[in-house]
């Protein structure tokens, strides 16, 4: 019995080995390497020297990194409605009116997701040009503007968020659509028998069943909004004006691949990992405690 268990265990380990090797080489290895680099002073060539916590101290002594962290939070807050409320509303509307028109709208909403990010960003550059761009020319006909959407520190970050949201909406409408297809039809029929109006059914029966997917999309938005905005920032503003569109991912890239200040870039990455990992760790801890209390 023991021999068979040991054999099965070694067999499972054998099957897992390729995946473990890949994970070690491409995920956990770089993670450990990043932590090591964060305490070194190294530009990628020459001999690295031990820097202790200097990189972390420099990171917070320079104004641009804390500012980039703050801008990332603002960006997430701006994108969040477009990752949840807007696609949820659109998906429910399309779900309630099934048919060819619904499929066409769904395809049109998804189209920006498959377009090349750089090409999309360049198209926005022409649209938003304050000297004759389509948007300002149109606003001009209404007697408004012109507004330098990407050049004015007050409007630049919200504009980047809206441009980024264009792709997020299409993808999330699709995900909400999949979740809506899995809704319990009996609960809808029961609500109808109870005399619930369409709005009441949506509000009290449909939406609550979308909370799990909404939670997932909120989590993805918090973790990935900065990365989603990366191409738009790189092509349209490079962090300008006055660093207002700079976010923590673009800053990390700038430190690492523009300045080759690998220690500083790695320190920024470690801070980011900790900031993103902390809420997850707290959540896991709370769930474990809750589980202990219940048992």
């Amino acid at each position, binding site marked *: 019995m023991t021999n068979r268990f040991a*054999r099965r265990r070694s*067999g499972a380990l*054998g*099957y897992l*080995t*390729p995946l473990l*090797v*890949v994970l070690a*080489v491409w995920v956990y290895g770089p993670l450990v390497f990043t932590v090591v680099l964060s305490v070194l002073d190294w*530009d*990628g*060539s020459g001999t690295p020297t031990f820097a202790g916590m200097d990189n972390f101290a420099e990171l917070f002594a320079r104004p641009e990194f804390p500012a980039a962290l703050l801008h990332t939070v603002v960006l997430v807050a701006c994108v969040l409605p477009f990752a949840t409320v807007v696609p949820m509303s659109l998906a429910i509307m399309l779900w309630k009116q099934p048919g060819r028109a619904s499929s066409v709208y769904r395809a049109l909403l998804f189209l920006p997701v498959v377009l090349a990010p750089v090409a999309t960003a360049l198209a926005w*550059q*022409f649209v938003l*040009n*304050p*000297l*004759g*761009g389509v948007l300002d020319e149109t606003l001009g006909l209404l007697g408004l503007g012109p507004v*330098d959407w*990407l*050049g004015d*520190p007050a409007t630049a970050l919200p504009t980047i968020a809206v441009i980024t949201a264009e792709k997020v909406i299409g993808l999330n409408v699709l995900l909400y659509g999949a979740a809506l297809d899995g809704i319990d039809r009996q609960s809808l029929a029961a609500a109808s028998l109870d005399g619930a109006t369409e709005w009441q059914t949506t509000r009290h029966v449909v939406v609550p069943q979308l909370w799990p997917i909404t939670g997932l999309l909120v989590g993805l938005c918090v973790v990935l909004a900065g990365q989603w905005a990366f191409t738009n920032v790189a092509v349209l*503003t*490079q*962090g*300008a*004006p*006055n*660093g207002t569109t700079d976010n923590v991912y673009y800053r990390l890239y700038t430190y690492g*691949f*523009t*300045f*080759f*200040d690998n220690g500083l870039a790695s320190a920024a990455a470690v801070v980011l990992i900790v900031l993103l990992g902390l809420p997850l760790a707290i959540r896991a801890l709370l769930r474990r405690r809750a589980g202990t209390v219940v048992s």
Partner: protein
Amino acid sequence: MTSIAKKRTRIRRLSLLAALVAVVTLTAAGCGTSGTDAASSGTITLSFLSYNYGTADLGGQGTQQLIDEFEAANPAIKIEPQGVAVADVLTKLRSSALGGNGFDVAQVGWSKMAVAYQSLPITPVQKIAPAQDWQDTAAGFNQAVLKATQHDGMTVAMPYTMSIPTLFYNANLFRAAGLDPADPPATMDQVRADALAIVQHGAQGVYFDVANASKSDFLTQSLVDSNGGSVVDADGKVTLDQPPAVQALQTMADLTRSAAQPGVKEADALAAFKAGKLGMLVTSTAVLTGLDSAAAGKFPVLATGFPSFGDKAPRPTYSGAGLVVLSKDTAKQQAAWKFIQFLTSAQAFTTITTKIGYLPLRPSVVTDPRYLKTYFDSDKRLLPALHQLDTLTPYTFFSGPKADQAVQALQDQAVAPIALQGADAQQTLHAVAGTIRGLLGQ
């Protein structure tokens, strides 16, 4: 255990081993180098990184033409070109060098050259070239350019695609504003007055491309130098918060505050000039071919020299790029020298000027009927810039390993807010000079 069970176990272990070997082999292959062979059947292949190569505009076509002509004349040398965005040249060069598949020859912008000297395995061009060959090549070159671009007393990067800032203007908008296109502005005060006149007639006035997307400070330096100041002094000390520098950049802020200059990004201003909505554009001569093709049939694009501050002589510095050799292989270095010799020959500068838009660095080609005489006889717009090339002010570098961070801090934190938003030059430059001194350890 039965013999069938033993056989199954052996087969399973072998399969696992094979899978493991496949993973390790693929991983190792991914980490391996893929550099170009030095020589294959007598042909030397040179990898060449160029930010002009592969672009859809005339610059891309001109670079391809130069490569084709070189390969036709040198069948034993094959060029393997690769394009890159101008802002990413150093990133590409450093990451490929770290990955073990570095380039043999590269076109590096002058604003990035200080960092390139420090961080890339560059062999000075002058050291690679045979002595007599070097003398012959240097003899016909613009001596002011050769001198201005030297590093540690020798030519490390060969001047290749060079330009200086110049003032382009839309002749139709000049006429519409009651200005004479034959009498373009020569001083900053005249630029401002003409710009305001153009603005009064419904167009945008002037745009100094000082806060450009490639984060080069060549126009910043041209302005500051022309007002008698400097960004750094001869000892490498930061001087960008001294009165001449402050006054020069305050001029930019005043233009924006008075609405003579739109406070927009470079790309927006370029698009506006091409659409005939901007009267004057002060930028690199390299954009001329692009402006011409956009303006064809709509309005004449004219050009004049970089404007002066009052009666002080204008002292523009240069932008563009030099060619560096990164290969350590002797045979490749000699092939690279032949390639560089060709790219800086009279024949090549004819293509570079007419197709790519940079200035010819061999003075004789301007008057030689075999090369550019016909071109300059019919189109004199680059002549003022060409004359200013003879009194070129060297481009100055910040020193130290964080020099590129210092340039970016200058451009992003000082020049852009001052020039595009009209921020106070004194206050902004004082703060940013402190940041830069911190970065440079001064």
